């Protein structure tokens, strides 16, 4: 029983250590630098390795090398760094390298405002890589989530052998808040499935599975890793059928499982005429706004999405069905994720309210939007 005062970035460090992350590399950038500092302090005493890369490309490159050598690896940056990660993200996707990427989002575009928040990278994290294969993006709302979702992020990266993003935000990463340490939800820690018997082909999958078993580079059996289009044996292939099957598997292995990692909060109110959908720091203002209205006899339901990508379509459809009337999507940008909601709920009235000015959207503004609808 103890109260600690930690920010989201510190909670991510704790979550990563708890999940077994023993390799970190990052390049200084506000508002993510304190994750680099935290990992450089924490990892060496544990026998882990944390390094500061010469740039963002190197930082993620070190992680991909270490991950293929068997370590759980993480990097942390903000929007400008994600841009530089892009080519290596597509490498990790196509070559099935587990990695956790923390994006403590800040006001963009470009250099933008280093110390101001936004959620401007929500579509960028999904699509900002060549090939367009699916990634996993989890969005924490507070320090508790930062811890727990970081553990989930590692578990998912290990399970699917793919890049997993934590979509944090300056307002979560650098806001310190009270955490009752005993109340931290601690998911069971998972590790990538190792190849145990028979011939090893680095990209072969067992019948009924979509993820290849892993062996580390540096182990007793030579392992091939390549960024080129490859077959099961890790050598280049030009066979269209083999390539098509492989691409479909890379898509399916993540997207078909989204129901098993759909994290969310739902505050369902009877006779609600509005369903508010939000994520990240904005969801906290939305919660305050909904509570304010509910206390005054105006029932409003709230869906807080913590699994952003792949889109948890089943959850969104089901929740929309339980809530008649208007759907209001609120984002700290000029409208990004709302297009996903509109795509899924094309027969419903889906409105958007968003701001991208570096400041949090306030509960008052959300209350006004709900009432004006």
């Amino acid at each position, binding site marked *: 029983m103890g109260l600690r005062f930690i920010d989201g970035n510190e909670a991510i460090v704790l979550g990563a250590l708890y999940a077994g992350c023993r390799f970190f590399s990052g390049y200084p950038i506000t508002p993510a630098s304190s994750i680099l500092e935290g990992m450089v302090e924490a990892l060496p005493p544990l*026998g882990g390795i944390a390094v500061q890369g010469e740039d963002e490309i190197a930082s993620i*490159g070190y992680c991909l090398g270490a991950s293929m050598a*068997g370590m759980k690896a993480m990097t942390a940056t903000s929007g400008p760094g994600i841009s530089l990660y892009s080519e290596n993200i597509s490498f990790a996707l196509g070559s099935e390298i587990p990695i956790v990427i923390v994006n403590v989002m800040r006001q963009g575009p470009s250099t933008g405002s280093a110390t101001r928040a936004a959620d401007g990278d929500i579509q960028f994290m999904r699509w900002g890589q060549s090939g367009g294969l699916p990634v996993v993006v989890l969005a924490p709302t507070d320090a508790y989530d930062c811890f727990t979702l970081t553990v989930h992020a590692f578990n998912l990266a290990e399970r699917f052998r793919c890049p997993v993003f934590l979509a944090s935000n300056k307002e979560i990463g650098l806001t310190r808040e009270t955490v009752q340490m005993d109340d931290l939800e601690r998911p069971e820690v998972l590790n990538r499935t190792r190849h145990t018997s028979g011939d090893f082909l680095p990209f072969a999958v067992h019948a009924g599975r979509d993820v290849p078993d892993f062996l580390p580079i540096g182990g007793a059996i030579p392992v091939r890793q390549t960024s080129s289009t490859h077959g099961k044996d890790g050598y280049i292939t030009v066979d269209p059928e083999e390539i098509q099957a492989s691409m479909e598997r890379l898509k399916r292995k993540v997207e078909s499982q989204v129901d098993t990692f759909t994290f969310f909060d739902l505050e369902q109110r009877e006779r609600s005429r509005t369903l508010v959908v939000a994520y990240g720091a904005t969801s*906290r203002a939305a919660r305050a706004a909904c509570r304010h209205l509910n206390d005054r006899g105006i029932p409003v339901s709230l869906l807080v999405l913590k699994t952003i990508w792949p889109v948890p379509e089943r959850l969104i459809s089901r929740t929309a069905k339980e809530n008649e009337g208007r759907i209001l999507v609120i984002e700290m940008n000029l409208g990004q994720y709302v297009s996903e909601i509109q795509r899924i709920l094309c027969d419903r009235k889906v409105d958007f309210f968003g701001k991208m000015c570096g400041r949090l959207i306030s*509960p008052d503004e959300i209350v006004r939007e709900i009432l004006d609808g």
Partner: protein
Amino acid sequence: MDSLINQSRPPMFCPGCSHDRSVRALDRVLENLHAGSADVVIVTDIGCSGLFDVFFSTHAFHGLHGRALTYAAGIKLAQPRLKVVVTMGDGGLGIGGAHLLAACRRNLDLTLLVLNNFNFGMTGGQFSCTTPSDARVTPGFLNCFERPMDVGSVAAAAGAPFVTRCSVHEKDLTDKIQAAIEFEGFSLVDIWGGCPGRYMKRNPASPEYLEARLRELPLLDGPAPNNFRQEYGRRYREYSGSAEFILDTRGIEPRAVRPFSGRRELVFLGAAGERIQSAGALLASAAMHAGLHAAQKNEFNITVLRGPSISEVILSTEAIDYTGIERPDVVAILATEGLDRRKDLIERISPLCLVIRDTSVDMGVHGEKGHVLDVNFKAHGIKKAEKALSALFLLARLGEIVTHEMLEPALSLAYSGVRLESAIDLRDRTADIPLQ
């Protein structure tokens, strides 16, 4: 030991390609070193140098253009026992220049073989960072305007402890590569060769020509004693421990009585050097000693000891949702810098809000807002760096948001020795300030 050439994918280059000699030489070295296929990883770049990993039956990692050294570093740090050989062309060298410099400076035990054939062979013979200015290459005249880079000199200048520059045709190429791999630390072998498919159609690259050009440059033949130092990985491991991670759940155990119920919003508007953020953290800690929820965010400029410093603290008996400040209950205006930065907030001060104002701050156009407590900190001998903490003691005297019972354990947790004594002294000096 046997050859580590991949029997299922034997080496294949364009006829007459010098890379073939490098593959054979590397294989002989690995054989000489009695390396098994699981003892080595070949990390390759993009282009013709990127074919090397396929030709060996070792661990293999073929990544992105110019980034081979980054993956190699990650692998070597994670698996120190592995021999890590990186192959990269002059193309990868140019695009990955920052990684080369970092590898030289860091001195991790990797061997980089630069397969230098003065052009981008695979993409059609475009000029690279090592193409001579007098060479005729695609896409036209551009290389004539630039000066080629001498990789070896750059590497030595950047701190590489082992640098060799040689022709692929030299009889002792195997010895040179072997010495590089056996060296503990970052080693680079700049291997000059010809690209018959592209470069050699219009440019000379015969063994004699390469030899003559090499003689024009200073000799780089292995160890660079000026750059000798401990290998990075070894040093890192010596620095590291082997502790197990234990999630420390210890923290503040609430004991003090909560002075209010509901939510309170406090803002400290000050300047850098006034310990504004420390005061905010202390207030949060005090609140936690009474079992309250707290949230704090700070705002400051990139300049140290100059510019505004602002701390926003929310305390609540309920979990805190929104972490912005809408209707502050307390605003401490301690410096003009902070006031100017948060004019928006001043507009939102209600008549019930307590405003602790340092009398040296001119409210200017803002006029008087809220319930003002004017404090002449200077007259009470309270220094710039003490004002924010003094404001906390004033709040404790009022006892509506924070009490001495809450603040004292927070002080003891944050400070000790002389600093704790001076904080207690400040509390006593603050006791003289009138609360009207």
